[in-house]
Each structure stands twice: as structure tokens, then as C-alpha cells.
């Protein structure tokens, strides 16, 4: 099925240029070009689109207003900005409704690549209602205790960047948000960043403050959390440390080690998304599993990796992280040819699972041993296990 893309810009020459340079994609993509926000909404009402990509500064309805409307009226559509705007206020206004931000002038190859990825992502998650729900999310709720500490720290006269990033790297929602900002061009040139710590120092504390206090993009739960949900953070952080240790054992490059940590932290973000949406979208989640609830996030096991990967993909996080999140249950699906963050997270999640009380007996259940041996890594398992045990012992000692 051909994918449909809508381009919006008040400058016809920009649209003409894009139309010509993407002419080669005409067999795969059906592209339409309109000159303003209201025309865009009319066109979308006639025919659904997979992606809308809009200029920001336009007369009458600007890009942020348009994407906000699209979010409500056509939630399944991926929302991208292509803007030459450098004014911080305008950019902040569109962070919420925009999945990905491309900065003008943008090489057509980059536009093509981002569109291709976003469109490929459409097939990862099949459930249309889930797609809509994930696509509407502007923020993933943070652990209340972490957010509270972060707010306290930011209100200090001279908060340190390392203090702030130490908190952010423990939280799924905050990590995903800062990585979205730096991997898209929201704050200048886009960079391929996998580490939340690096992202925080690139975003800067001034902007973090605005995200927290003004934009509310580090959001909170409105009520108290049931224990099993709180447990997700602890589990995620352990998996992140394990995956990082495994990647270190393999002497991977820094980027891969960072991907392993972040993917480990985020591997269960889909469960979190489903758990906190289960109340609002009760009909939806009942459909997925009758037993799922906030008290039982495990019940989302079949679908949560795809839900998480879909959100992170929409937000433009590095492909390695998305791959690891999407396939950490069934890594062979991604057809890996060598060690990667996906393998690290798959193994780390398995080790972490095994440490849970009552799980110790099932030694290699869930571990894709045939894939590991296919990759020639079965000899490495013992080193990985040792590295993870050390981390576990450290964490136990600290606790």
C-alpha cells in the first residue's frame, strides 16, 4: 500500500522544490502539497495521511497550531516540522505536538530518510487504536519521587548539570524526552545521541527548567502509583546497568554502550504507556488483554515492546535503541548479524528476570540460545553473567 505524505508550507517555491526532488519516490509515496494550515486540515479530512510535514511560521494558522489540531483530529498521522525558525519561544511551542523536527535548510536525503523511517515504523504496530493513543502522547509520566527531586534540584540557585542528569538517566519518560530533543533538530543541529547524560548537557539546564516548569513535558501521575508499576523503574534501571555492563564486556564503542544502557532503561516503556493509559482507554486495553491493569503491567508482555518502539520511533530516537526495544523478546526477528544493543538488552532483561524471587529455577527460559550461538557468542555468556552479578552485588550493597 502506498504511503501518503502531506507537505505544508506558505512558500510555494519550497513545495515545488520538494515535489521535484522527491519525484523519484512517486511510486512508493503519494505526496500532496498545500499552502497553509486550513487547506491542510481540509485535505486531511478528505483522505487520511500517514505523515504530515509542516513549516512552522505561516500566516494565520502557524505550524504549531496546525500540528496541535492534527494531533486531536487525525491522531494516527505522524507529525513532523520542517522549519527555518530559530526563535526559542516558537520552537518550544511546537515541541509538544511535534514528533520530529527538521531544520531548514534540510538536505532532501535527510528528509527522505526520516520519512522512510517514520513510514516503516507504521508497520511495527498494527493496532490502529494503539497507534492513535501513542501518537497523541506528548510525555511519558515520570516516577513521582524522581520528578520531585529534579524540581527541588532545579530550584536551587546553582544546580549542577551532573546532578540533574543523574536523576534524568534513571527515568524512562525524562530520558526519552531529552533524547527526542537532541536527536531531532529542535535545539539546533540534530545529533545522533544515545546517552541521556550527554543530551542533558546539550539541552542545557535553562531549557530543562522550561520543559519541567512551563511546558510540563516531564509529566506526573495524578494519583499514587501501585507498587508493581513503581517496580518497573527499578527493573528498568537494573536492566540498563546489566546491558551496559554486557556491552562493556564486549569492548563495544561508546555509542553502542550508551545505546545498550538507554535501550535497557527504555525496554519496558511500552508497559508504562499501556499501564497509564489503561484507565483512559479501558475498552482498548480490555481488547488487548482482559487481565491487564495498572496493578499488573506484566500482562502487556505481548504488545508492549512494539508500543514502546513506536513511541520512541515517532520521537526520532536512534534506530539501534528502537530496534532493541522493539525486539528484546524475540531478537531473531531483527536478524542480527553481530553483537548489538539489542543482544545486550535481550540478555540483560533475561538475567534480571531470573533474579526475581521464584524465577531462579528456569535458567535459560526466554533466552534465545540458538541466536546467541548462531552469532558465536555462547562462550561470552559466562563473562556477561559475571559482569551482571557484580553489578547486582554492587546494587544490593548500595541498597
Amino acid at each position, binding site marked *: 500500500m502506498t504511503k501518503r505524505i502531506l507537505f505544508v508550507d506558505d512558500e510555494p517555491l519550497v513545495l515545488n522544490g520538494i515535489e521535484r*526532488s522527491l519525484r523519484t519516490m512517486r511510486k512508493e509515496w503519494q505526496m500532496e502539497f498545500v499552502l497553509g494550515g486550513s487547506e491542510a486540515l481540509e485535505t486531511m479530512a478528505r483522505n487520511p495521511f500517514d505523515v504530515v510535514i509542516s513549516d512552522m511560521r505561516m500566516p494565520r494558522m502557524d505550524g504549531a497550531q496546525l500540528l496541535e489540531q492534527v494531533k486531536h483530529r487525525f491522531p494516527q498521522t505522524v507529525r513532523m516540522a520542517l522549519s527555518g525558525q530559530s526563535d526559542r519561544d516558537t520552537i518550544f511551542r511546537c515541541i509538544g505536538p511535534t514528533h520530529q523536527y527538521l531544520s*531548514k535548510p534540510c538536505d532532501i536525503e535527510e528528509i527522505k530518510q526520516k520519512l522512510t523511517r517514520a513510514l516503516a515504523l507504521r508497520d511495527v504496530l498494527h493496532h490502529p487504536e494503539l497507534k492513535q493513543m501513542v501518537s497523541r502522547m506528548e510525555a511519558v509520566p515520570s516516577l513521582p519521587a524522581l520528578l520531585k527531586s529534579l524540581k527541588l534540584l532545579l530550584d536551587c540557585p546553582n544546580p549542577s548539570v551532573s546532578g540533574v542528569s543523574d536523576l534524568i538517566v534513571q527515568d524512562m519518560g525524562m530520558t526519552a524526552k531529552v533524547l527526542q530533543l537532541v536527536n531531532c533538530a529542535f535545539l539546533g543541529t540534530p545529533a545522533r545521541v544515545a546517552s541521556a547524560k550527554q543530551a542533558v548537557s546539550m539541552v542545557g539546564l535553562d531549557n530543562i527548567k522550561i520543559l519541567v516548569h512551563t511546558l510540563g513535558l516531564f509529566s506526573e501521575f495524578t494519583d499514587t502509583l501501585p507498587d508493581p508499576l513503581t517496580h518497573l523503574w527499578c527493573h528498568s534501571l537494573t536492566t540498563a546497568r546489566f546491558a551496559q555492563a554486557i556491552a562493556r564486556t564486549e569492548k563495544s564503542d561508546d555509542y553502542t554502550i550508551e545505546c545498550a544502557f538507554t535501550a535497557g532503561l527504555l525496554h519496558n516503556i511500552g508497559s508504562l504507556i499501556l499501564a497509564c493509559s489503561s484507565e483512559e482507554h479501558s475498552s482498548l486495553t480490555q481488547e488487548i488483554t482482559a487481565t491487564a491493569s495498572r496493578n499488573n503491567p506484566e500482562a502487556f508482555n505481548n504488545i508492549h515492546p512494539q508500543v514502546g518502539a513506536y513511541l520512541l520511533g515517532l520521537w526520532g530516537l536512534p534506530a539501534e535503541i528502537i530496534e532493541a526495544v522493539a525486539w528484546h523478546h524475540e531478537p531473531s526477528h531483527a536478524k542480527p548479524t553481530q553483537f548489538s544493543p539489542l543482544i545486550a538488552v535481550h540478555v540483560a532483561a533475561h538475567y534480571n528476570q531470573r533474579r526475581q524471587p521464584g524465577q531462579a529455577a528456569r535458567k535459560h527460559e526466554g533466552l534465545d540460545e540458538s541466536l546467541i550461538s548462531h552469532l558465536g557468542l555462547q562462550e561470552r555468556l559466562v563473562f556477561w553473567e559475571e559482569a551482571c552479578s557484580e553489578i547486582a552485588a554492587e546494587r544490593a550493597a548500595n541498597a
Partner: protein
Amino acid sequence: MDSTVSKLAATRSSRVLLAESDKVSLTHIRDLLSRIGYEVVTTENGLQALNFLEQSKSPELAVLSWTLPEMDGIEVCRRLKKSSHHLNHYTILLTPWSKQTERTTALEGADASLFKPVDVRELRLRLQIGTQTILERALRQSHSETELFLRCVPSILIGLDSDGRITRWNLTATNTFGLEEKDVKGKPIGDCGIEWSNPEMKKEIDRWLRTAIEYRCDNLPYLHGGEKRLLGLTVRSIPSEDANSDGFIVTGADVTHRLSLEAQLRQSQKLEAIGQLAAGMAHEINTPTQYVGDNTRFLKDAWDSLADLLDHSRHLRRVAESGKVAAEELAKFDQLVEEADLDYLMKEIPRALEQATEGLQRVTKIISGMKEFSHPGSEEKHEIDLNKAIETTIAVTRHEWKYSADLVTRFDENLPRVACLAGEFNQAVLNLIINASHAIAGVAASEDKSKGTITISTRQEGEWVEIAVADTGTGIPLEIQPRMFEPFFTTKEVGKGTGQGLALAHSVIVNRHQGKIWFESEAGKGTTFFMKIPIKAKPALP
């Protein structure tokens, strides 16, 4: 006369404190004092006498007996001398003949001593001396306060006699010129050692002194330690009773720092405006860059397809020469035409070339406009075409107004060239255009979404040209109208405006061009700013 002195002279000179423990002596001396015209306050106790004197706010005369209960007279005098009031009081110690030998000791603390029994004439004399002494002390103190005051005034203060010779020279003058008071006193001001940069200064100063009216001059260049500095001076003559001058007072200050601060402020406002422009300019340049890039990319891909097609055409030509062209060769040709999307390319390539060229022209125009706008380094007035200058400013601010307003120009085509500091003039116009577009955006945000209009017109009016910038914006509320040109006054949100825009426009038009700036505004209808500058240049104030 100083207030302490006058108070003393008017009220307190006739009061005496009498401290005496011997009842007979007390009555006797009190009677004597009353007889020679003094009001008397009495006590029999030394400590009470000390308290009275220490607490009195005005200078006192005191007559104290040698021996007194609780504290003797000598001790009262000693204590008084140590306290902060001692200079205000005059103490006379009554010394018995028996203590004759100790009288010198007594005098260390007291101002005078009298032998008992008291001789009335001597007492009267002593008290008169006491009054005099108190007066003198008060005068001396008041004088030294005045001296200190003059010394510390943070501006130059120079006194001249009627011949222009220096009589007074304060600390600031010393610091400014590096010349001590003792070295300049008595010398003519024009020849006292100040290194004037201008050799004509001496004559100039003589002229000031002859005209004997208030004379003010800014930016007099002089040298201090080899460094060129600037001085602002005011000369006032001190009128005497016979209508001649009794001398002059010269006040002033080194204004080098102030002038450089003002220049910095102008510069920083310029930078601020440029920064604001740069953000918008980036957007203006990004847009054409985007489509120039896309079209170039398209042309490259198109060329790849066309090159294959051309190769094959050449091949076909060769084959055709040697005989019949095979059907599959023709089919290959058709396939290449199909793949290249030839009809599309034929139609779109000329357009792509045209639009890429157009894009480059737009970038060029923006960049040359920016250069023209900022006029780097023009510190002199040049005759410029104001209409053209305004056009340039309109072009560089396009992104500021194009989303909220249409801009209309009504230029007087016969406008003469006007002597102008082009960079600063452009800055003033820019600030007015930006304000106009913000005022219109204010309406757009609050009411419907239709665009407003900015109208810029120029016309000649005798020796002046008038430039008007009118908007259909929110208008200026009556209560803030008087504050419009105040520096740092702003109604914009924090971070949106620093309140420098109109203050700068005012300074540029009024100080730098000897022009006028004013506005007419009606709430809800809009505002028109008018600027009027003389066609022929007048010297600019700094």
C-alpha cells in the same frame, strides 16, 4: 552663617551653668551672674553638672567649683574634654587660694580658672572671652566642614578671581588634571598647567571670562598623562554689588567615560537589533536555501536520467547510419524515456532552473540589504536618498511584518538627498517598523486574524523632510503616552523588548540630527510616528 553659630549668637550666649556645693558661695555668684545679665542654671553636684553639659545640644558656658560632691570640678572638665561635646563648651574653674599651686593642673582640663572669692569684673571678662571662644570654635568647625564639602564634591570646582586667577581648586580638579592646589593657586586658569589639546583654548578661556555670562562647553579635549580625554565645563561669574564680576566659579567633569558608555549603549542596542534581525534573517535565508538545494538536487537526478538517454540516442544515431535500427533498440529508447519521466523533466527542468536562480537572487538581496542597512563605520553625515534607505530597512525587516501586515509606501519621489548618519537613521526606522508590526500583531492576536497595514510616507516641508510610519495596531493607551521615549520603558513581555527602541530613535533624531520625533495615537485605531530632520546637516551632539 552656619546654623550652630547663629543659634549660639541668638539664644545661648547669656546662659551660665553654675556648679557650687557651698550654699553661701552659690547664692553670691548666682547673684553676681544675674546682675551682669546672665540667666543662671545651678547645681550643687559635680556629676549633675557633667550630665547637664554632656546632654546639652547647644554650646554652654559653665562655672564650676573646685570641690563638688560625687565628682570634683577638675574631673568634670577632664571628662568633658574627652567627650565629643567638649569643643562646644567653655568651662571656668573656681580655684581657692589654697590650691594656688595646683592651678596649672586645673587648667589642663578647664578653659580658664578664677580665684575665689570671685571678682565680678574678672568674671564678666572671662565669660565674654568664653562666648567669643565658643563662637570662634563654631566658625572654625563650620568652615572646615565647608572645605571638606567642597573638597569632596565629585565634580571639578575651581574658583577664579576677577582676573581669572585660581583661588580655589578642589580634590576632583587635582585628580582630573593631575595638578595640586599649591601648584596652580594664583595662576591664570588658561595657563595653570592643564594640557589642552587645542592650542586656541587659552584665547577661548579669555573670551569666556570677558563676556562674564554663564558659559557651557562640552567635549573639550585635553591630555592627562598623555591620554586624550574629554571635559565638560561650565563657567559662571559671581556677581558683585557694583555689577562687575567678583570672580568666577568653574564647574565641570571629565565626560570621557560617560561618552564612551553612551556610545556603548548605542552599540549594544544596535547589536540587540541585529540579533533580533539575525533570527528573522536566518529564516528568510533558510527558505530560499531549502528550495535552491532541492531544485539543484532534482537537476542532478534529472541529469543522470538524461545522460543515459543521450548516450542511447548517440548509440541509435550510429546504428541508424549503418542500416536499420532493431526494434529492441527502439524499445530500449522508449523505456529510458519512460524511466526518465521525460515529459515531466522537459516541463520541470526550466522551472527548476528559474526558481533556483530566483532563490539565489533572494539570498543575495537579503545579504546586500543587511550590509547596506548596517553601514559599518559611517560616523559622518552623508547625503543619502532617504527613500532608498527606508526601502532597504523595509526589506531587512520583511520577516517581522509579513505575517501580520501589508506594508505600503507613499514616498515623495522628488525628495532631496538629506545629510544623514545612515546607519543610525536606518536603526531608528527599523525600530519604528518593528514596533508597528508588534502593535498590529497585538490586534491580530486579540481579534480576527486579518492582516493590518503599515504605511510609510516621506515628504519635504521647507528645509525639512518628514517621515511618517503609521500602523493600524492597538494604539498607545493615553496613560503611558508621556513615557514612550523613556529609556527602558517597555510594555512588552520580559525578553521581548528592552525599552530601548524608541529611546534610541529619539536620541538619533533629536540629538544626532537636530530633528524632531513625535506621535499621534488613538486606542484601537493605530499609531503614527513622525520624524522630521533638517535637509542641511547641523552638528550632532554626541
